[in-house]
């Protein structure tokens, strides 16, 4: 905990959040001279320079969120095979520092923000009256689901809440190893703890400030031992000189530690980023980064990606490596085109029997109805 607290230079608490559980907890954890109560967010909003972006990771702002918490995953764009994932954002910005992080082109907030009104988010979900729909909801879109959880303890509130809604699945997605703060709650059938993973070499080279691969896999083992469901996302796959060897070892390590029945699903995805992100990545990480020096091209959704053939080659390699261990491993591709699915899997995700529940459009229609089409 001291290491986590030491990451932050200062905490600003919006006076409107003063009486929240989160503000109380922060006051109990941080030294008083690191905390200020403010009427508005420090620093102005706008396109962030690299130094402002770096500063935004070292300062914390606690405030209530005023908009809609519940949104559709940004993968749901025309032309991509989307797995009907929804996101619940309780914060903005991340305390870790991956070279490819899409937040570099996404956020204009000058400070890591934690929303103090998680209860409102849960109320929003409850009021949608969708308890009979099968929904998959993640909390790791604009903030890592668990890296700050020892401070917020939001995982405990979320697990408790989701136990009421057996048809919904909650997914925590993280690159940290911070799981011990909720393990005592015991498993919930519909809660999945998932890790974005990459070979140890890539973690070291591109995923700065994250838990090591070994630490992430050990955290997954601890969750599994307590009865929690786990999942892995090999995403984003990064093309580099030894990619075959490194991704091969990663797959072997997963298969050595886990069996297909331990992991309900695994996703793979390849590097992708918005064009606007290139400059800030180049300035923050330099041309030694595999991500910055990658040979990428604009794809139809506007993001930059590796050539389609390279993506297919990487996906096929990982797919086959898993299959060489056990054919029961089930993989799906994240933010990919139906054409890539056909080339790699030989079947459209919408027609694959094993993946059909993930790509079923019915939940999407139900949520759109419940929120009158306004789901981001």
């Amino acid at each position, binding site marked *: 905990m001291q290491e986590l607290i030491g990451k932050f230079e200062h905490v600003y608490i919006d006076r409107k959040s003063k009486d929240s559980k989160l503000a109380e907890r922060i006051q109990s954890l941080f030294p008083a001279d690191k905390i200020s109560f403010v009427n508005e967010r420090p620093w102005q909003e706008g396109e962030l320079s690299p130094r*402002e972006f770096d500063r935004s990771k070292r300062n914390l702002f606690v405030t209530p969120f005023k908009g809609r918490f519940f949104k559709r995953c940004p993968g749901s764009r025309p032309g991509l095979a989307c797995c009907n994932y929804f996101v619940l954002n309780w914060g903005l910005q991340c305390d870790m520092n991956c070279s490819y992080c899409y937040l570099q082109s996404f956020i204009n907030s000058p400070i890591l923000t934690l929303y103090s009104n998680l209860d409102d988010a849960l109320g929003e979900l409850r009021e949608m009256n969708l308890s009979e729909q099968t929904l998959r909801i993640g909390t790791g879109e604009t903030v890592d689901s668990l890296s700050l959880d020892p401070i917020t303890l939001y995982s405990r509130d979320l697990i408790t809440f989701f136990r009421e809604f057996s048809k919904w699945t909650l997914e925590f997605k993280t690159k940290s190893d911070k799981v011990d703060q909720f393990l005592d709650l015991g498993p919930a059938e519909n809660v999945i703890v998932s890790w974005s993973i990459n070979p140890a070499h890539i973690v070291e080279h591109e995923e700065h400030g994250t838990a090591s691969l070994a630490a992430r896999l050990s955290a997954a083992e601890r969750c599994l031992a307590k009865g929690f469901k786990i999942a892995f996302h090999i995403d984003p796959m990064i093309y580099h000189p030894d990619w075959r060897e490194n991704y091969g070892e990663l797959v072997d390590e997963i298969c050595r530690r886990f069996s297909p029945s331990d992991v309900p699903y695994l996703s793979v995805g390849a590097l992708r980023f918005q064009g606007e992100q290139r400059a800030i990545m*180049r*300035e923050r990480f330099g*041309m030694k980064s595999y991500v910055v020096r990658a040979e990428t*091209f604009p*794809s139809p959704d506007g993001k930059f990606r590796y050539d389609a053939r390279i993506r297919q080659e990487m996906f096929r390699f990982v797919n086959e490596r898993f299959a060489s261990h056990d054919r029961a491993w089930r993989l799906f591709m994240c933010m990919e085109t139906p054409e890539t699915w056909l080339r790699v899997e030989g079947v459209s995700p919408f027609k694959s029997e094993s993946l059909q529940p993930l790509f079923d459009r019915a939940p999407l229609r139900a949520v759109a109805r419940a929120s009158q089409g306004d789901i981001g």
Partner: protein
Amino acid sequence: MQLTPILRCGSELNFEPRQAWPEVLPPVSWRGQLLCGFGRMGGDALDLGDKLFLDVWRACHPHLGLAELARARQRLESVWPELYLEVRYSFFSSYNLRWCDRLDQVLEALNHAPFEFQNLVDEKSVSVRELAPLLSVNSVDEIEPLLKALTTLTLSRFELSRALELAVELYLMGRPLNDLLPTVNNGGLYVRRLEQWRKPESSQADEEWRRTVRNWPWPAQVKAEWQRFGDQAGLEVKIRTTSPADFQKKLENLLAIPDSWSCKS
């Protein structure tokens, strides 16, 4: 309305605007400094020191390019630092720019670029975002020969920003600057060469495909070429046909192509 002899006015704000102040108008001064007509040696300036600075400035310079703004910002900050801090948001918003750290950094970098490059930036209306590569090098002086060389090429705005980004990235990847200087006047060709260097694996693969498909058994009057379409590459086939029977025949002949393609894939 008050007149002040020009010789009694300072010209420290001379940011070298691209357009000369109209001869028929007197220069304008504000609190002892000329805001325009900097080259005039004699006569009087119209002193508008009793008006708001921004109002007078905007009236004198309703349209300015990014490089002109970079120079103006530098002069203004050095002559009246407190005034600049007070007005910078409104100053830049008059030119549809939002003052922020990022804008400040780009303008500062642009100030260090050769004057002919600055003029090119204004001539092509290059945006703040397109100039971001200047922030990736330790000092803009390092790439001065490149920036000067870019001004000698025939380039569209897109080609200029693409060339700047590619050349800076290649330089940062260790390619000597001398290698990166253009040897042709054609901007399009220069950008293509930089693209090939920046993406050697894809370029080589595309080139190999291009050569391969040329040798496939294409029917007469069918033109086929290996093309890149963003993150995908593939065949573009053009068929010239004169009748349904001719069309049918060509399609039948084309059926041999997938075999060649499958072998190569």
